[in-house]
Structures are given as structure tokens and as C-alpha cells.
């Protein structure tokens, strides 16, 4: 089995649950269009039916068939996406991350300001921020309880689109053209792709190539 890239998306229950699910599912689907093998899960381990509680969504991408079934959580996430920036204050989001991982935060604050809330930031290879709330400003909320089975709002209609654009550019694991076929707000996807700010650390890191 080849290298499996694990992506964990952190969000808040109910109010931004659908946004993070769109990020996880659409990014996995776009990677699948390029012939990669993908797994995507959500709603495991955490209790996402409570407003504002921190929850996770998981994606795994690999060039070969993924043989790690039946285990939903990502123990060693290479990429961590923060849909709501306050989460970095209350949770150790980099837990289990290997040296040189990527952190993408949806915030309009400077990167240095966000890093002061992350005491273990020295494992990071790259930090990126995108102001998805400023670009899109819409948070699609899904109260149907169908967990994505019935979705009238459309995939990637709110802040998920700029986050997906930023993630596509920084991680390089899915193409923007494939994402544009999935999300409904393509203009926000383009803006997120162009307006992402990233900071790479100069230390010698492992094989990752973030933001190239």
C-alpha cells in the first residue's frame, strides 16, 4: 500500500456542519476524478448534533487502493483544515500530525496572530489562511438531519467553495477544474484559489510539496 494522505476537517456542529461535509466530500470526489483512490467519512467519534460542538470530517487520498477500512478517524493527519478559526484555541488540532504537515485556516487574521494559539506549531511545514467568510459570506445550514442524503442547498454553495479552492492550490492533490464541476459557487472557488495566503517554514521537512 502506498502513501495515504489523510485530511481532517474541523468544524462546529450544526451551524457549519454542512460546509465541512462539502469540503470533505467534494475534495475527495475531485481527487477521485483524477484516478486516485479516496475514502471520506463524517459523523464518527464526535456528536455533531449539538450546536457549536467541535466535530471532524475525514478524507483519505492515495494512488493505490486504500486497505485501512473500518477505522474512521485519521490518527496521523497530513492536512488539517479549520473551517471555524476559534477551534485552534480550544483543541489540539495538530495532534498526531507528522513533521511537515499542512494547516489551512478560514480566517481574515494574520498568520502570525493565529500561530500564537498553536503551541505545537513547530511540526508544521506550511500554514495557509483564506478569508472564506469574507469571500462568500454564506453559511449553508442543513437542518434536514439526513446527513447529506437529501441536499437541496447544493454542494459548495457557501464558505466551502473558497476553502476548497485554497485547499486545491496549497495541497495540490485535486485540480481546480475538477472541483469547478462539483461546487455550485465557482466564482468563490476561483477567489479562494487566488486569494489564499501561505507561509512556508524554512526547516528541512519531509517529502511534502505544499504550495508549489
Amino acid at each position, binding site marked *: 500500500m502506498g502513501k495515504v494522505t489523510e485530511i481532517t476537517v474541523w468544524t*462546529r456542529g450544526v451551524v457549519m456542519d454542512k460546509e465541512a461535509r462539502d469540503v470533505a466530500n467534494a475534495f475527495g470526489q475531485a481527487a477521485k476524478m483524477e484516478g486516485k483512490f479516496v475514502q471520506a467519512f463524517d459523523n464518527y*467519534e*464526535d*456528536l455533531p448534533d449539538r*450546536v*457549536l*460542538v*467541535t*466535530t*471532524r470530517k475525514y478524507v483519505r487520498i492515495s494512488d493505490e487502493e486504500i486497505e485501512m477500512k473500518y477505522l474512521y478517524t485519521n490518527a496521523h493527519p497530513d492536512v488539517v483544515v479549520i473551517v*471555524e*478559526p*476559534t*477551534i485552534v*484555541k*480550544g*483543541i*489540539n488540532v495538530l*495532534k498526531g500530525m507528522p513533521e511537515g504537515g499542512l494547516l489551512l485556516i478560514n*480566517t481574515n*487574521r494574520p498568520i502570525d*496572530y493565529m500561530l*500564537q*494559539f498553536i503551541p505545537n506549531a513547530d511540526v508544521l511545514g506550511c500554514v495557509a489562511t483564506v478569508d472564506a467568510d469574507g469571500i462568500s459570506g454564506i453559511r449553508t445550514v442543513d437542518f434536514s438531519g439526513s446527513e447529506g442524503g437529501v441536499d437541496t442547498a447544493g454542494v459548495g454553495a457557501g464558505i466551502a467553495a473558497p476553502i476548497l479552492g485554497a485547499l486545491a492550490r496549497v495541497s495540490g492533490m485535486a485540480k481546480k477544474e475538477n472541483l469547478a464541476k462539483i461546487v455550485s459557487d465557482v466564482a468563490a472557488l476561483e477567489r479562494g484559489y487566488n486569494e489564499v495566503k501561505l507561509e512556508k517554514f524554512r526547516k528541512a521537512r519531509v517529502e511534502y510539496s505544499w504550495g508549489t
Partner: protein
Amino acid sequence: MAIKIPKDREVPFGAITPAPVKQQDLFITSNWRIVRPIIDHEKCTRCFTCYASCPDSCWSYNEKEDKMEWNWKFCKGCQICIYECPADAISAAPELDFQDGVHRLEKPF
């Protein structure tokens, strides 16, 4: 109080807690908060509306100093006190403007 629990005997956060306590320190939920309420003590009339409206009993009255006190450990930032306050003494401030006031957890909840 640090009790060593073996890995196979671990239970979810808040599953076992000491029963009659005034404050459940094993169930701190401050990391649910996006905004926090900030009280202006000059505007406050001590009407206790925030005390009555808070679902988590995070507002209490300090008799010695004659002012309302906010409990950061259990406030989830629902902003009910801000909307209910008749004197407009409470306002919302983004949690990221502050360095402290959130209990950092290893697990999600």
C-alpha cells in the same frame, strides 16, 4: 487530580464525573464558544435577567463587590444574555481577540 487510567479503560469525556459538586470541572465546554459576552458594570442595573436567562447558569452575583460575574468555563457563547439584557450592558466580542479563557483539550469534547 491526575488519575492514571489504562488505555483500554478510557471512557468518553464527561462519562464519569463526581456527583454532587458545585462546578463540574471534568466537563468544561469553553471551547464551544465563538464569541464571548463582555459586561459593562457601569450600565448593569443588577436586574438578574442574564442570571435567569442563561441555560448553563454562567452568570452569578458577587455580593461583596456588587457586580455580576461570568463563568468562562461553561459559557458556550449562545448570546442569549446579550439579547435579553434590558440595559444593553452585555456585548459580544470575538473569542480570538483574547489570549486566555479557553480550556484546551486533546479530544474534541
